[in-house]
């Protein structure tokens, strides 16, 4: 692999950048692999990378029906944080956060992880109780998260409206300083390049149409638009499309797929120094390196694979942004788009073995999968390589929906009274 550096750029500049090789190879598939990963999003590519890097398994193919990084990896608002309440969630997201810090150097690809801080706003007494509970749990879990007064919140994020005049005034906030954003495409490309360099085959425009199992039941490969490809192990990492793929292997999933929209504004000079989230008024915002305000909307209420949602969802999101940041009313929405998010009953992921020997699944990240990318790939590779979960993903089983041992972060923030 050609090492990326300022020096390499300078040298290439002298010859019109004609010397760069491809970042990843585009081989024809072999007849059989040790491991096939279905889905070349961030999680799938990271899995392949760590299979090669940590477990020495390089006879790996990542099959992608479209183009790599074209699903939710390239469609999300790139928020990274780990200040989750439950030990299980904090465990996996903080594992990811530790990998984010240093990922550019590990991959030799600048993924632009930017620890700008993630602030979560409290608008009522209930929010304060819930967020304080997070802070206390985080502290004992070794996850940084601190409480800010409205004035401190405004110091950290000057556009924030902390006047008491809004419908839901800001009465406090939490701040995770290690939280932030990263460049989504670079994550997919960086993992693809590093995996490809270690011998992983990334096969784009290759749609899986079926799975094959031996009479004894274990997986032996997949049928694809490029023909049958054998595999000893298959990992499904297909986000919104997981239900359909798992159904092919007769595994029915506790998943539903919903449209999730996001949008960016026109680019402006730096004005927004961090990430701000408000679950109460439904606003998620940061500013990209390019200067666009990146804004996440909520899901539509119905299931869909259309990668499109309703305008009223966007409107509602912009309402909230303009309430929190009234000076942005004259800004303009430049582009909006939709993704398909797969949601489990407890809104936590499934990273696990399945009832089918040799078949593994990594799904259910809902609206928050991007931040977990390195950690998810890392422990999923472990699960596939060892045929047993890593300590960190052990709780994220399929069985928990049978036993009731759910990991329900959203329920923990339940509004009632």
């Amino acid at each position, binding site marked *: 692999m050609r090492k990326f550096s300022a020096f390499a750029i300078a040298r290439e500049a002298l010859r019109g950048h004609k010397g760069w090789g491809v970042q990843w190879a585009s081989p024809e598939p072999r007849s059989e692999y040790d491991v096939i990963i279905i889905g070349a999003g961030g999680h799938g590519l990271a899995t392949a990378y760590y299979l090669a890097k940590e477990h020495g398994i390089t006879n790996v193919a990542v099959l992608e029906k479209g183009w790599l990084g074209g699903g939710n990896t390239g469609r999300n608002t790139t928020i990274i944080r780990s200040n989750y309440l439950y030990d299980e969630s904090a465990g996996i997201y903080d594992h990811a956060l530790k990998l984010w810090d240093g990922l550019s150097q590990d991959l030799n690809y600048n993924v632009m992880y930017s620890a700008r801080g993630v602030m979560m706003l409290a608008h009522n007494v209930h929010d304060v109780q819930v967020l304080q509970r997070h802070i206390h749990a985080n502290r004992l879990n070794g996850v940084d998260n601190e409480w800010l007064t409205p004035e401190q919140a405004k110091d950290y994020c000057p556009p924030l409206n902390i006047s008491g005049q809004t419908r839901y005034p800001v009465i406090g906030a939490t701040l995770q300083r290690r939280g932030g954003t990263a460049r989504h495409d670079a994550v997919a490309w960086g993992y693809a390049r590093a995996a490809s360099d270690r011998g992983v085959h990334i096969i784009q425009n290759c749609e899986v149409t079926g799975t094959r199992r031996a009479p004894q039941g274990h997986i032996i490969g997949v049928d694809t638009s490029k023909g049958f490809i054998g595999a000893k192990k298959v990992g499904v990492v297909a986000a919104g499309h997981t239900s*359909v793929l798992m159904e092919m292997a007769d595994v029915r999933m506790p998943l539903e797929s919903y449209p999730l929209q996001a949008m960016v504004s026109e680019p402006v000079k730096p004005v927004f120094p961090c990430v701000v989230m408000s679950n109460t008024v439904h606003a998620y915002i940061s500013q990209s390196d390019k200067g666009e305000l990146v804004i996440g909307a909520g899901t539509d209420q119905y*299931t869909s694979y259309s990668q499109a949602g309703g305008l009223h969802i966007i409107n509602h999101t912009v309402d909230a942004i303009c309430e929190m940041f009234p000076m942005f009313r004259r800004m303009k929405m430049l582009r909006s788009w939709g993704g398909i998010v797969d949601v489990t009953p407890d809104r936590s992921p499934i990273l696990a073995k399945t009832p089918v020997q040799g078949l593994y699944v990594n799904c259910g990240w809902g609206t928050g999968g991007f931040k977990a990318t390195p950690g998810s790939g890392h422990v999923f590779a472990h699960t596939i390589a060892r045929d047993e979960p890593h300590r960190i993903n052990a709780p994220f089983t399929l069985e928990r929906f049978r036993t009731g041992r759910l990991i329900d972060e959203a329920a923990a923030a339940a509004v009632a009274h």
Partner: protein
Amino acid sequence: MLLIRCPYCEEDRPELEFRHAGEAHLVRPSNMDAMSDAEFERFLFIRQNPKGVVFERWRHVHGCARFFNAARDTITDKFVTTYKAGEPKPTLEGAEE
């Protein structure tokens, strides 16, 4: 924003009047105590989530307040039909059973 035909009101109304209520034709068993944990899991959590026609429930919550069923294509979001609760699942071409 979807436009939804309420089979009770017999009118096309905007989605804002409705609330989605999950997969349709899931019958709550009368003998729940006899169900195994796996059977109960299937009833409670396992969903078809089809890419294509989904049978789903809606409630005309800001209208007549009735729950009803719909067949909708999840790729195009187009409704195939809506029908009253309790009516049999219509047979449609291309729909999963």
